[in-house]
């Protein structure tokens, strides 16, 4: 019984990681940039979702506003941060992203205070019993929500014109350009979707823990970085699977490996182990 519970916990946690990691892998797939500032978008999503829900009483509105605003913010970050340094060596974009991340976290602290904020009426808290396991509604919603959003993204990529353009640009930017595909539009879409997913992850996280504070984005996002490497940089499906796997490994690891290392290290230990055996990651890039 405990095993089933641990697996469930792991999948829930993994779903959150997946929502964050997908945005990261999209950016890497397109631009070969490690988008560290993505972590701050996760946090921003949590703040907006919580504040709007508290102010209007509507969680749906909270989700919507969070995802749209953060999506646009993601585009802005591309425009003002990455666009100009695309032809520089990769460490430039990396450090610029780090600086932006730190500045944004501080911005959150200065605007909303250093201490945590909570829902005045936490949503989805009713207890539900599923197969003998008691969970909150929020726990149950996380996994399908992640699948829905990521599935939606996959659908956009597979079935729409702009999705086709995106795939073309990732595969061969020069060729895509010669077909008249507007690289800029593709990048904007890329950042919008990835950031919106991170925002959704943030709101979900806020619902699960009822605890939003400026530095909450760091730890989940560092793990997301490990996940995108495992999943194959740029590979959305691989990232999703790697995220869920990691969630479960962490879940068991916290209990059974706690004597050797703390929870956050487990993700990286797993990563290093895998890379030593398979330097290209678990799944080859699609």
């Amino acid at each position, binding site marked *: 019984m*405990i095993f089933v519970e641990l697996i469930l916990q792991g999948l829930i946690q993994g779903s959150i990681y997946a929502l964050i990691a997908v945005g990261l892998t999209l950016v890497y797939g397109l631009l070969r940039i490690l988008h560290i500032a993505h972590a701050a978008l996760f946090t921003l999503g949590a703040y907006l979702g919580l504040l709007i829900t508290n102010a209007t009483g509507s969680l749906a509105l909270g989700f919507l506003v969070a995802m749209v605003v953060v999506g646009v913010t993601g585009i802005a970050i591309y425009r003002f941060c990455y666009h100009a340094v695309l032809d520089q060596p990769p460490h430039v974009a990396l450090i610029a992203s780090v600086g932006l991340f730190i500045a944004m976290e501080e911005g959150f602290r200065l605007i909303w205070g*250093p*201490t945590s904020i909570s829902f005045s009426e936490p949503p989805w808290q009713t207890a539900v019993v599923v197969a003998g396991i008691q*969970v909150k509604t929020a*726990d149950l919603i996380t996994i399908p929500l992640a699948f829905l959003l990521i599935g939606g993204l996959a659908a956009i990529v597979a079935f729409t014109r702009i999705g086709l353009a995106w795939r073309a640009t990732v595969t061969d930017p020069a060729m895509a350009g010669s077909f008249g595909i507007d690289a800029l539009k593709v990048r904007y879409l890329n950042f919008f979707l990835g950031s919106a997913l991170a925002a959704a992850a943030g709101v979900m996280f806020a619902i699960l823990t009822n*605890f939003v*504070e400026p530095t909450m984005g760091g730890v989940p996002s560092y793990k997301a970085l490990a996940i995108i490497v495992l999943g194959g940089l740029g590979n959305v499906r691989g990232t999703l699977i790697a995220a869920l796997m990691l969630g479960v490994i962490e879940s068991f690891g*916290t209990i059974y490996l706690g004597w050797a290392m*703390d929870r956050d290290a487990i993700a990286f230990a797993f990563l290093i182990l895998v890379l030593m055996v398979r330097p290209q990651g678990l799944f080859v890039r699609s």
Partner: protein
Amino acid sequence: MTRGSLLLTAGLAVLFAATASAAESVKIGMNLPQTGIGAADGKSVLTAAQIAVDEVNADGGVNGKPVELVVYDDQTSPKFSVPVATKLIEKDQVPIAISGSYSGATRAAAGVFQAAGVPYISAYAVHPDITRAGDLVFRTSFVGEVLGRAGAHLVGKQLGKKRAVVTVMKNDYGKSLARGFKEVAAKFGIEIVNEYEYSLKDRQFGPIVSKIKADNPDIIYDTGYWFVAAPLVSQLRGGGVNAPVVGQEGYDGQKFIEIAGAAADGVMITTSLDRDSTVPKIKAFMDEFEKRAGYKADMVGASAHVAVNVAVAALRKAGSLDGKAIQAALQQTKYEGVTGKIRFNEIGEAYKVVQVQVVRDGGWHHHSVITDAKLLTPPLN
């Protein structure tokens, strides 16, 4: 005199007056968290400390001179508390300092103050090694072991629970409390079914909740701060674990209740501030605090208020700014403040009674008081 030289003289006079009056105040150094994870507690500490300073200054200050707080942010980290301590000692040259911060930061800074000959008071940090840094380090709140023992007393003797799960926050604070609890658990008939550890950065406790559910204890004793305990308690209840939870002063404050919501109901803690106190001095403090801070008084604020007053009492008694004289005065100090009566033993540990508070109607309320002298006597080594 020309206009220019008149202006210059006036300017110099003002400068002189400013530096002179600045030199006139008695400085009390403080390290506390203004940013980072402990910022909320830091705000309580600063508010309460300022209340104490204002009261003291209204009362004539120290030997005629006003008291001034010199405050630096240490982000609850030893990484910063050490350079902050160095700065207070070497740059601001404070005669005495108070830690308004957590155990890790206080411990590191204590060594620096001891080595520099400056008396240092830990307002609420509990780790035993703090006072062991030397004879110049004092503590106005409970040492970890004592608080842990009080927890065992509450669980075993008062509530009569036999099977307990202990959840330990993995740092100075959490570990010393757990040690105290385990030290006397058997004496109070408590069987520790299982023990789990977590980091102060954790917010998601799914695996631990599942395991505790399988353990099915009568009660849970937890040693975490409010920002980890609140999600933990909330997730315990969400996961169907209904055993009562006993925490400690790390929960003390409105934020715990705010985050945990309905799950906080019935949670008990061992702490030092009695919200339902009818003592005029305590009520006056709580009212003033709420007026200035915008939220209800908490244990860290009360402890800071006490620490400042104890420092001032010692400064007055010593009559000088000499470290040794202040140390001797502190050793003798007996003070009665918003956390009750306090006096120190040979190694600078305080003895005082434990307030047990419980969450009811969305706030902390009086549950009981633990006065067992032998249990609460701080260790001598």
